[in-house]
């Protein structure tokens, strides 16, 4: 076999898949390379589960299919999944003590679909407990190579957080531990870590990817999506993640799967980019503002036009989200009661005591905080004032977007008001964490597709992301828009220099 010219880990997903398809490198060699690389970078705390034997067996099976000529589109490509997706081959913990060592008897639909295309699983990736967090400081599970839980580290500066909740999914891609990974986004959990780690990530329209096998946080918001180093790689992966799953997920859209690479060559001439004034208010750092401005200027060079639009209820998306998501979470997490699976307190006096101890021990502080908030807003006498009111505003937020899309084709702005903050900087201040979600929440609440595209760095060398929001089912337009940008910029190809191994 001819060795590829570049290091395998520097190849894009598309390029690596091609090398494997042409049998310049075997799936087995590829898996070995990435397993070794993962091990060498365990200081990042990205992996919570790895099993060489499982991964290499999958790789050998991929090589056999390659030999037989029955290879799938992702044959032999190594990936890893956020530990929110349940898998048979690895424990599925959701970053929680509650599910320490939990083994699912089935794979999530997204995992199955990628495996059907021949993808090889390197392991499971750390995340905030039950996907609740914006910094990946809330995992209660010790990462591979660590003896106790610790925050996941940003490869651009290991003293900084990677964002969350799909923090490790972004870290693993940025640090070139794999060409792409899966994440989930409830209020920005793909877009914000992608922005903080300088990678590309997309959350599709709500209902486009099956939620079956995703450990539920907030059912009306949770969506799976890919994270990779380019829009093109995201487009390939997303094509194989999405599609109807009507027998397993009632919120799955009854629309055939799409090839999201189909628009990647389209011109941006005349494309109207809506720029909401509300995304550029006080609180947005100057460097973020400058990077987003420069990106918009670059789009103008590509033939697009800027259109001012308004999303007047942007600020309200914070209270609305922090009512609806905890409300759903408080109910979704009721099943973790120590009766059927997961953690159960060792000693208890009666049923109530068993529940109390099991849940007190099993859940971390942020999860408990959200269960309490959610329980409160659904309680008798508060439901109308909080939950119902939030639902009404949620509808208005969606209407605001439709209003804006009358005047533009896509909406652009920053992903987050700042770059990645230092580990511990906001960990004692949940409210500061919540406020940092302001620009990703609106698209989540409206169920719209949203994406993060690397668009620059601050003076300290930390990445800045540009957010693109499309109307329903406009994923391929967003991906092409990001692709055109990446054809003329190099932010997405830069390598993080801050990794200490």
């Amino acid at each position: 076999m001819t060795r590829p010219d570049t290091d395998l880990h520097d190849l894009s997903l598309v390029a690596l898949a091609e090398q494997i398809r042409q049998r310049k490198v075997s799936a087995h060699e590829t898996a070995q390379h990435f397993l070794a690389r993962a091990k060498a970078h365990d200081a990042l705390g990205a992996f919570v589960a790895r099993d060489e034997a499982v991964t290499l067996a999958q790789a050998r099976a991929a090589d056999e299919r390659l030999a037989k000529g029955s290879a799938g589109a992702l044959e032999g490509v190594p990936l890893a999944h956020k530990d929110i997706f349940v898998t048979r081959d690895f424990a599925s913990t959701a970053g929680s003590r509650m599910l320490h060592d939990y083994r699912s008897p089935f794979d999530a639909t997204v995992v199955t679909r990628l495996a059907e295309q021949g993808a090889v699983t390197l392991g499971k990736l750390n995340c905030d407990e039950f996907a609740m967090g914006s910094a990946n400081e809330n995992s209660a599970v010790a990462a591979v190579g660590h003896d106790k839980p610790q925050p996941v580290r940003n490869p651009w500066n290991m003293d900084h957080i990677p964002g969350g909740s799909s923090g490790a999914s972004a870290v693993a891609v940025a640090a070139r531990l794999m060409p792409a990974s899966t994440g989930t986004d409830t209020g920005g959990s793909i877009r914000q870590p992608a922005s903080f780690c300088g990678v590309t990530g997309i959350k599709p329209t709500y209902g486009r990817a099956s939620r079956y096998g995703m450990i539920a946080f907030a059912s009306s918001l949770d969506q799976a999506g890919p994270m990779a180093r380019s829009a093109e790689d995201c487009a390939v992966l997303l094509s194989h993640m999405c599609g109807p799953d009507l027998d397993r997920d009632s919120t799955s859209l009854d629309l055939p799967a799409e090839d999201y690479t189909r628009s990647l060559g389209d011109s941006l001439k005349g494309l109207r980019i809506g720029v909401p004034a509300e995304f550029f208010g006080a609180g947005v750092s100057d460097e973020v503002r400058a990077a987003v401005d420069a990106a918009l200027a670059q789009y103008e060079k590509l033939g697009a036009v800027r259109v001012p639009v308004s999303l007047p209820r942007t600020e309200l998306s914070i209270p609305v989200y922090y009512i609806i998501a905890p409300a759903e979470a408080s109910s979704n997490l009721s099943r973790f009661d120590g009766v059927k699976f997961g953690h159960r307190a060792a000693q208890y006096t009666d049923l109530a005591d068993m529940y109390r101890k099991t849940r007190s021990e099993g859940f971390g502080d942020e999860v408990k905080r959200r269960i309490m908030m959610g329980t409160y807003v659904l309680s008798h006498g508060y439901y109308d004032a909080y939950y119902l009111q939030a639902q009404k505003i949620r509808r208005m937020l969606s209407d605001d977007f439709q209003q804006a899309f009358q005047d533009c084709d896509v909406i652009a702005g920053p992903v987050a008001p700042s770059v990645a903050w230092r580990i511990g900087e906001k960990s004692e201040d949940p409210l500061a964490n919540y406020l940092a979600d302001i620009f990703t929440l609106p698209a989540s609440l409206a169920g719209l597709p949203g994406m993060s595209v690397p668009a620059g760095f601050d003076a300290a060398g930390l990445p800045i992301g540009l957010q693109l929001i499309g109307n329903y089912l406009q994923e391929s337009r967003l991906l092409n828009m990001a692709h055109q940008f990446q054809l003329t910029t190099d932010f997405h190809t830069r390598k993080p220099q801050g990794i200490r191994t």
Partner: protein
Amino acid sequence: MSAQKEQEHGAAVTAATPKALLVRGYEVVIGFETHAQLSTQSKIFSRASTAFGAAPNTQACAVDLALPGTLPVMNKGAVERAIRLGLAVNAHIADKSIFARKNYFYPDLPKGYQISQFEIPVVQGGDVQFMLDGEPRSVRLVRAHLEEDAGKSLHEDFIGQTGIDLNRAGTPLLEIVTEPDMRSSAEAVAYARALHGLVTWIGICDGNMQEGSFRCDANVSVRKPGAPLGTRREIKNLNSFKFMQQAMDYEVRWQIEQIEDGHAIEQATVLFDPATGETRAMRTKEDAADYRYFPDPDLPPLMIAQSWIDEVRAAMPELPQALRARLVSEHGLSEYDASILTQSKATAQYFLDAVAAGGQPKLLCNWITGELSRRLNQEELTIESSPIPPAKLAWLVKLIEIGTVSNNAAKTVFNTLWTRTTSGVANLVAPMAQLTATATVHNDAHKREILAIVEELGLGQMNDSSALEAIIADVVVANAKSVEEFRQGKDKAFNALVGQIMKASRGKANPAQVNELLRKKLA
């Protein structure tokens, strides 16, 4: 459902009170909530089987166990059955209804919430009609909503521990809620029987009360006539008609005694103990949980298009009420007979098949509700498995009608037919379905079989008037005293003579003919 019940019970404008059946000066007010288990093959939100009686936890799939990552998917069959009920009770079927989560912790509730319809149920309004003491009655329904059942906690089988069986978790239920329209325990039981008959009639529930397929909760309160509704207590899980009545009667007495003793009734949920015949409180209003209902984000609103309703309507069987009216108008039965025959679909079908085979309707009705049902009950058989198929009974009845056998003799023939069929003596032992399917072929066979028995047992009616006249002449001579008394105006004496004549004919004389000839003789 506590909050909602409160609303329903408190705000309800009660129907015009029927002729008051006061108990010690109190009017009884009863409303019902019935959980009918829907007869789907699989569960309401998963593909696991609903079959009863499997080994614990063998019919609970990942969704039923609430494993992380699982999601509910609506079983269309359960919705279709809800539509059937809605059509059968003339209710509004919501084009859009909502599933909510009822949140509470209990070990046999795997998700920590039950999926149930709360604010917008699939079936709204409607009424159930039935007969009570020969009078038509109607009970209004508030709603019927779809929900999933919980699992079972087994406290008895483990010492100091509780076993959990999740086979039942996710079984589809339709909860049918009435207005507080009933004014006596007898009326409430009649309602429950009518509803039971209806859900089995339209095939949405197997009606098996022992297995818990049809469970009733009775909301009972008492008041002085004209007073506002009293505080109610809810008797849970009544799964036999007998206990239902006992429980409500006890509860009514208990409440009246409490009030008479100056105690206020406290809202509570109570259980009936068949061993003691008493109800005892399980929990009071203070313990009422806050269920934190909210729309289930995993399930979009349930949409029912008019075309689906039309499809279901087209496939509906004739409803008991319509059939009852037809039995009166077409077959000349009394309202009472018609209501008895339409208590179950199988009985009604048996009757219709027998009529189709040529039996006289009124006589058939008497035989079905009399001898046949007596014998079926005695042998604990259902009418579908009757050893005497409808066509055979039709022939027996026809032979009575044309005077071949007397009614009494026919009973002997019936019992002989029964015994021979069940003991395998008869040459015609075939399942009823098969017999009715080939009715014309077998009709002659039925006739021959019956006539053979009549012949064999010498049960043929004496229709030869000269032979009968000879017997009458003998009896008149031998009973001069009775003849004398009759002539003095004692009707009893006439009956005594008829009896003697029947005896002398060894039961074969036709009583009508005896009457006629004897009167002529004594005239």
